[in-house]
């Protein structure tokens, strides 16, 4: 009986513990050897778990980003390459490498320090097969006096599938961006002895062989869990269309059901996953920049008609194609996963395809130089600004003393506002409430002709790369020549009034004289 009570108490305790546990802890939950934490110089941090699977190889999970001076943000529940589809131009052979062969297990190459020259090798089971290194992005921030390239964490492994060696890569940037990628190297796979076929090229030094052109289609599966809840993410497509008047306006469609989308270069469509329905909530932007090639073979593979999919998370929907081979109770490809389910208050999974068409060149002999493909996911409204990323001290510029000014309507005005900056930054000026007719350029030069009288309180702002200063001065615009004419007419008016007053006085005086004469006459009468 005591044992039963104890057991019940333990169960109750466990239940209560689970009850008070937050929906998602603010850090990954995995063993120490499966966890990767990278803290950058500016304090930004990426934190995640990793594992290597037989099929997909590298699978990342519980991915968190902490901005400089910010709080950890849960970004992804899991991320992986979900298919590597290769179609040859002669259409004789198509490979689905992830499901036909796999990128892990025996296909995963052991790495040496030579393969990971600036990094650290991590073991997959008992052999080194994952390279972890810190690098710098090609981009960052540039001001007139400084430049900062964004630091990044790169993880990669290499899988040998047939003649190809695929470098599966994930890069996490200090500014919160993420970049999955695949580098294709190794050697050309397929050739033909019929050199006159139009499906490839004969390369130098080997006149009897036609090396076949082919397309690599990379599909990534990204289970977004932005923020506290896994089930409130929102999917939106944004377009920037040119209007008839030449302006370009932003149009946003928020989708309520599962979607299969195509790139739309003319309308410049991009995709966003938001933390919740608030438009200014944290989000990740996916721009299909690397879409200069687009594979399509809808007769045999209808899913190839689309580039971007959003589905409700389902553990048995693992592979973009040939899914049923390993999940017989589930549908077979990603287009079939898109079956009209509501995505409101659901856990969302994003699938993105990038294509690369490979035309053999002589330099591909005997071993190919790596050609890289991938895409960038950029944070939006995740950081509190870029200052912390720049990591540099800055002194705000100071506006030179301003004095009140007076001009007349119609004057030709040329005036300069100046400022100093101890950092010698390039400065730009703006002004508010200038008298009508005047404008100021970014160098602080004011010019134009005032068009209306008044006393204006002009606000001037000067900005350097990071800070700004403001000051005000009064600008009195008085009347010009027409106003002076009006002043003359006032004098004339006064003169007339004076004359009238004098006339009235004379009339009044005359009346009094007449009255006096009448009084005298009456008295004499």
């Amino acid at each position, binding site marked *: 009986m005591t044992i039963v009570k104890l057991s019940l108490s333990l169960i109750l305790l466990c239940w209560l513990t689970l009850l008070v546990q937050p929906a998602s802890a603010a850090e990954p939950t995995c063993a120490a050897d499966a966890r990767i934490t990278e803290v950058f110089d500016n304090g930004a941090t990426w934190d995640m778990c990793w594992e290597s699977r037989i099929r997909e190889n590298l699978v990342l999970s519980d991915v968190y980003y902490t901005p400089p001076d910010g709080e950890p943000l849960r970004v992804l529940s899991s991320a992986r390459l979900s298919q590597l589809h290769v179609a040859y131009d002669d259409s004789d052979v198509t490979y689905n490498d992830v499901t036909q062969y796999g990128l892990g297990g025996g296909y995963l190459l052991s790495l040496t320090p030579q393969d990971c020259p600036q990094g650290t090798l991590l073991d997959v089971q008992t052999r080194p097969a994952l390279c972890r290194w810190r690098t710098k992005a090609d981009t960052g921030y540039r001001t007139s006096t400084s430049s900062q390239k964004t630091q990044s964490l790169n993880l990669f492994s290499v899988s040998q599938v047939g003649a190809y060696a695929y470098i599966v890569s994930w890069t996490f940037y200090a500014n919160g961006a993420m970049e999955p990628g695949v580098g294709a190297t190794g050697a050309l796979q397929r050739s033909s002895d019929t050199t006159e076929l139009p499906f490839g090229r004969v390369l130098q030094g080997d006149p009897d062989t036609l090396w076949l052109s082919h397309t690599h289609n990379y599909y990534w599966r990204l289970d977004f869990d932005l923020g506290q809840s896994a089930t409130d993410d929102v999917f939106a497509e944004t377009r920037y269309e040119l209007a008839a008047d030449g302006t370009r306006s932003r149009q946003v469609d928020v989708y309520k059901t599962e979607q299969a989308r195509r790139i739309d270069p003319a309308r410049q469509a991009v995709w966003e996953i938001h933390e919740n329905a608030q438009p200014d909530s944290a989000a990740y932007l996916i721009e*299909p920049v690397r879409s200069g090639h687009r594979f399509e073979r809808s007769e045999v593979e209808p899913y190839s008609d689309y580039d971007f999919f959003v589905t409700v998370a389902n553990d048995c929907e693992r592979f973009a194609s040939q899914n049923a081979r390993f999940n017989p109770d589930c549908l077979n490809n990603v287009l079939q996963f898109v079956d009209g389910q509501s995505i409101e208050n659901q856990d969302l999974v994003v699938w993105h395809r990038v294509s690369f*068409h490979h*035309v053999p060149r002589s330099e591909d002999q005997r071993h190919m130089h790596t050609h890289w493909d991938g895409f960038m996911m950029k944070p939006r*409204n995740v950081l509190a600004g870029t200052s912390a990323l720049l990591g540099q001290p800055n002194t705000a510029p100071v506006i030179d003393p301003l004095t009140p000014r007076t001009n007349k309507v119609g004057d030709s005005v040329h005036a300069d506002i100046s400022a100093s900056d101890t950092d010698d930054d390039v400065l730009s000026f703006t002004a508010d409430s200038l008298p009508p007719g005047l404008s100021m350029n970014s160098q602080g030069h004011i010019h134009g002709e005032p068009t209306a009288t008044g006393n204006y309180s002009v606000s001037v702002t000067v900005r350097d790369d990071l800070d700004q200063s403001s000051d005000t001065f009064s600008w009195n615009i008085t009347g010009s020549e027409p106003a002076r004419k009006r002043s003359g007419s006032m004098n004339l008016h006064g003169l007339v009034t004076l004359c009238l007053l004098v006339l009235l006085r004379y009339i009044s005086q005359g009346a009094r004289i007449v009255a006096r004469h009448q009084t005298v006459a009456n008295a004499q009468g």
Partner: protein
Amino acid sequence: MSRDTDSLSRQRAFVHNRWPERTRLSAVRLIHAGFLLLVLTGGSFASSVFAQQNDCTNAVALQHSFSSGASWSLCAAVNNDHGLTVSSVYYRAPGDSSRSVLAELHLGQLLLHYHDATEAEPQIRPPQPLRIQPSINATRQLELSTAQELRVLTDDDLQDDAQTIEPVRFTERSCNGERLGADSQPDTICAITKNNRTLAKYAQRPSLNSQSWELASAFARDALIWTSAVTFTEDGQIRPAVSLSGRASRSNTDTRYAATLPLPIDPLTRATVFATWRMVFNLDTDAADKIEQFDFPLDTQSGNRRPMQVSPIITETLRRVDRQTFRGWRMVDGSGAGYYLDPSNNGFSYSSRSENWAQFDMAFSRLATCERYALLNINDVSNNCGTGLDDFVNGESLIDAVPVVWYSQMRNMDLTLEDWPVISELALSFDLLPFDWTASSPFELIE
């Protein structure tokens, strides 16, 4: 339109003779063992200012050598109109001779279209004594000779236009590399050597690793900072790139055109960047370079095959990227050595209500030294030059002529907190890939 002839032949005189095929392969075999060891150690040699065979008038002569034996040599200058210009560019693959690749490469125009405006603002504005009124006619090039009104710029026009750009002078804070420049423009070029990701890997053979060499210049336009850069990789690739950073200063309260940020930040006006590069190839031997267009259209009638179609481009023309046919272009010398421009990074199509050329991604024109800018080209009527690509591309023959390649890309700038107060760099880049430049990878032993 008649044009001045260019003196490319003068530059060609300095090109080393290409080695005969067999000799080159033998040389490759002999020296591979030596430089392969160097490749494996991952070392590199610093770039240096040197006296090269080319005439680098008003430019600095540069050479960068890698540990593999690969090297680049070129002239570099920062132009007050358009930033970095590289010219007389030569590449030496490991075991090969130094061979000419480019006569000249620079930005040909940068359009910045604020979304609340009806017209894009050219960021490259060379001085112009005369200006043609902006046209809204998309077929302007057809009418140029008949009806164009000219007007003289006023003082205010000149003042507001800020005719030339002021190159950024790099400091330790802004250049994490070597600061270079011509005597008249010191510290206007930043040279950086970078470690690339894996160059090649096969099975359990050790990875080949490589480096690249980047030259960059920057200029300010209003509060914006534009960086134009060209990266030269150890294996012969060229990657031109332009990026936008600096400070966003344009605002609009209309949310159709501006991004709303938390107060007190004013709503920031969105913009589209359209960057056009001008490339004059000068490939390998004295033979005239040719342009080929590659397409791989899907043939559903024959089992979804994709036959390769190679079309020579023999007259001046404007072309679009065709994503479905995997379109690309090869510039090729008479020797067969070439470079391939693969528009992989071209995900968006620019559209313009006023400029016909800006409806396209690619243009090919016949070389004329006065045709330098896709828009606002110096309108020197006496030289019979046009005002931009819509004038340059008028059907002239490219046969036995030096072709000029104009390639454009675009991206949108939709600002968020991550862009305040400094814009997170918005970059546009593409690759020029050696294509049958060498008979095989010059980085590996031929077995």
